[in-house]
């Protein structure tokens, strides 16, 4: 990650058109790709949950979607900064990726709303899983829809795919991508571990708080009131 920052900030030559602001490309695009990857992973775990009915996939799917949403929000943020720097607007409807991420962000926020309004249990796991699957199908469909919509909503003015990358730019891009993916993976493991510990603790506490089967004490066993 540190290497990626150094490379992106100091080593790579500046883009001829956009100057220094182009450097955000090395953080924006890897974050976006990682967000897609997390959504895909969440849907994959959801599919496995529906297929095998093993409970641990529920938590894994949820954590992956959670990471994806965080990276999606970061994509919106960095994309917005980039748009401000190079096109002098904070938001533009003509950037397909940004619009797609906005739709996905709304979709996955609804995922959390759904999840938090169902009682914990198998039903919640399955409803969330089905919704996560819908999400991953929505990505290409929305992308297509946004491309179609631009024909009548807004003409394409800017093109992000832009200039061809030179070798050093491409290498920097790959290092950044690897760094962000690694970061996402570490965060995923940490959150998963935390949630598992939470779940275990809750289970333990419930076991402790459950009233123990009462052992009859000695003096209670003595028949009282009968003989006296």
């Amino acid at each position, binding site marked *: 990650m540190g290497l990626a920052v150094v490379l992106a900030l100091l080593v790579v030559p500046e883009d001829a058109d956009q100057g220094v602001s182009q450097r955000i490309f090395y953080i924006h695009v890897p974050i976006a790709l990682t967000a897609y990857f997390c959504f895909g992973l969440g849907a994959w775990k959801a599919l496995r949950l529906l297929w095998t009915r093993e409970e641990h996939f529920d938590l894994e799917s949820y954590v992956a979607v959670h990471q994806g949403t965080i990276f999606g929000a970061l994509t919106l943020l960095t994309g917005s900064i980039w748009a401000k720097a190079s096109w002098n607007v904070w938001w533009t409807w003509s950037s397909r990726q940004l619009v797609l991420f906005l739709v996905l962000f*709304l979709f996955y926020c*609804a995922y959390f*709303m759904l999840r938090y309004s169902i009682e914990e249990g198998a039903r919640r796991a*399955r*409803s969330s*899983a*089905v*919704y996560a699957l819908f999400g991953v199908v929505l990505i290409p469909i929305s992308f297509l829809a946004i491309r*179609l919509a631009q*024909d009548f909503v807004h003409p394409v003015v800017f093109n992000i795919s832009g200039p061809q990358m030179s070798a050093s730019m491409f290498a920097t891009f790959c290092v950044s991508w690897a760094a962000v993916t690694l970061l996402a993976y570490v965060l995923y493991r940490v959150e998963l571990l935390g949630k598992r510990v939470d779940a275990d603790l809750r289970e333990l506490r419930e076991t402790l708080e459950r009233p123990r089967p009462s052992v009859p004490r000695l003096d209670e066993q003595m028949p009282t009131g009968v003989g006296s």
Partner: protein
Amino acid sequence: MTAYVADVAALAHKDLKVELRTRDTLPAMLLFVVATLVVFHFALPADAGDDAAYGLLWIAIVFTALVGLARAWVPEHEHGVLEGLVLAPCDRSAIWLGKTIAALAFLAAAQVVALPAFALFFAPLDAPALLGVVLADLGICAVGSLLAAMAAATRSREVLLPLLLLPLAMPLVVGGVGSAIAPEPGRYLLFLALYDAVFAVLSWASFEYVVTE
């Protein structure tokens, strides 16, 4: 196969009969869509073209569908019918298909009034636009009846359904508006058909997981 069709027909018939007796959903949808169109007249600036009106028509259609779908599973939940249906010896996806057909019937009935009203108030609708409406209705009802079943099992059902459905309905609005205003609407109709096929299959296959305990 014939048993499956008979199950679906019986379930859809049940929904239509319940609606005929209670009249809970359809009058509400009709009033809502006409009132919305009237409000839109005041929301549009006087010099806004027809294109803006087509956009608003699609907002009206999506929200009318939401009004209907929000009530779609209420009778089942109030009387514990859903548990009975899930236990019944029929394919669970038949429950979804029956509900989708009933929702489609309500939405179509509302549009029989809404579309002429739109043509009268705002702008005429040509054949591709009407075909777009039909295709988008299919998609909304297919996805909507699954999501409504999902939302009906939650604590905040009325609030949740629009949140769940609107991001998924965005491509339908694109296709619908495109088929109404684009010079060559074929691509948009094709896109709507693709959406319908993909999401109908997905909803059909995943409904079982949403209703079983």
